């Protein structure tokens, strides 16, 4: 169990940032689901719930998801059930249960860049940016590989294009973490294949995506390319070999679903 010395609900994002940087053991509180699994001793816990960051906003060209939006809000969001073949909705649906998803936040999932994250895998297949208080607006792909600097993730910004997408995952049981997660999208003729829970954090299979964009009929080659261009690992949920085989199957299913 973790410990906290102090709990603060700041009134502005500036105040939150100032508090965060006051002490190296100060921490932003998301849904607490992962944080409470650890044993760290924190100084101040900073709760962003009074900053109005719990909304999903549809603009003319983008969808903005505030960091305090819960996974359940994503699941029942009208706009996210409309765009990208409900990719984000499908990605969060199997995460434990409704009560868990009513607690877990988008900011917690994305900022932490968990290897097992379904949401991160799905967001990566879209045209997604993250808005950081200090770091500004940067592509999610860049953010995923950045070192963990102390910053506040304010919101996620997704370009509202006409992309088609598919979400595929394999789990040992319905509510478990994924053994492997795959999100695929096609915008015009450009494909994006994102693979997460390898068990490392999600990344785009660049060469495979490019191959498919040029030769959409070459699904098998794209599957083989994807598993050869990224690292798969072994953990309690599956071996690297097993994940490679799963990846090929899930990529094929995703591509076929989009082509249907």
């Amino acid at each position, binding site marked *: 169990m973790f410990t*906290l010395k102090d709990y603060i609900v700041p009134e502005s994002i500036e105040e939150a940032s100032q508090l965060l940087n006051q002490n190296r053991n100060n921490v932003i*509180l998301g849904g*607490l689901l992962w944080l409470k699994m650890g044993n760290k001793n924190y100084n101040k816990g900073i*709760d962003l719930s009074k900053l109005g960051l719990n909304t999903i906003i549809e603009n003319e060209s983008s969808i903005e998801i505030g960091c305090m939006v819960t996974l359940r809000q994503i699941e029942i969001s009208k706009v996210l059930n409309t765009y990208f073949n409900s990719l984000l909705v499908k990605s969060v649906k199997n995460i*434990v249960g*409704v*009560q*868990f998803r009513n*607690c877990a936040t988008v900011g917690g999932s994305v900022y932490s860049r968990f290897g097992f994250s379904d949401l991160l895998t799905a967001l990566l297949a879209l045209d997604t940016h993250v808005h950081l208080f200090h770091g500004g607006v940067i592509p999610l792909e860049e953010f995923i590989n950045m070192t963990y600097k102390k910053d506040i993730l304010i919101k996620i910004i997704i370009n509202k294009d006409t992309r088609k997408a598919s979400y595929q995952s394999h789990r040992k049981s319905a509510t478990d973490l994924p053994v492997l997660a795959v999100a695929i999208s096609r915008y015009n003729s450009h494909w994006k294949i994102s693979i997460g829970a390898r068990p490392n954090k999600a990344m785009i299979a660049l060469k495979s995506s490019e191959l498919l964009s040029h030769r959409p009929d070459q699904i098998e080659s794209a599957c083989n390319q994807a598993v050869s261009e990224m690292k798969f690992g072994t953990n309690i949920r599956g071996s690297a070999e097993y994940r490679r085989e799963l990846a090929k199957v899930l990529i094929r299913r995703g591509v076929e679903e989009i082509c249907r």
Partner: protein
Amino acid sequence: MQIKCTINNRIFVEDIQVDMLLIDFLRHLGFLSVKRGCDTANCGLCTVWIDNKTVLSCSILAVSVNEKHVTTLEGIQDEAIEFGKFIASEGAEQCGYCSPGFIMNVLAMKRELVNPTEDSIKHYLSGNLCRCTGYMGQLRAIKKFLNATRGGCLSESS
């Protein structure tokens, strides 16, 4: 830190440690229906409602319910007893340890979903684990309960 919250329509003003979890706070105040099962946010036993949203009290800081309304099984006893009769008559109650959290989530589902299909019932309740009774009896009880009370459930999908 001092907090003021409403639990089952009663106001509480309490001075608590900032890292106290809601489950411990509620049990400390005598709301013993709230059970700790897995302690890894996976079993649903500690389910309560905050401002009518079904949540896991094992993963929420008690200080964060300041100025909010918390509902535990003790606060909706009449409805819980009504559903409990359906569970019992389907033989879907053995040790009963998971029942408070399970009932809280069934009643939350009843408020949130209109005419749920069997699939959407299963999806809504998939985060509620039961290790001895089994899910088939529970599902029968839920369907009969929904059909017998306001809300109902689509029969063609059952």
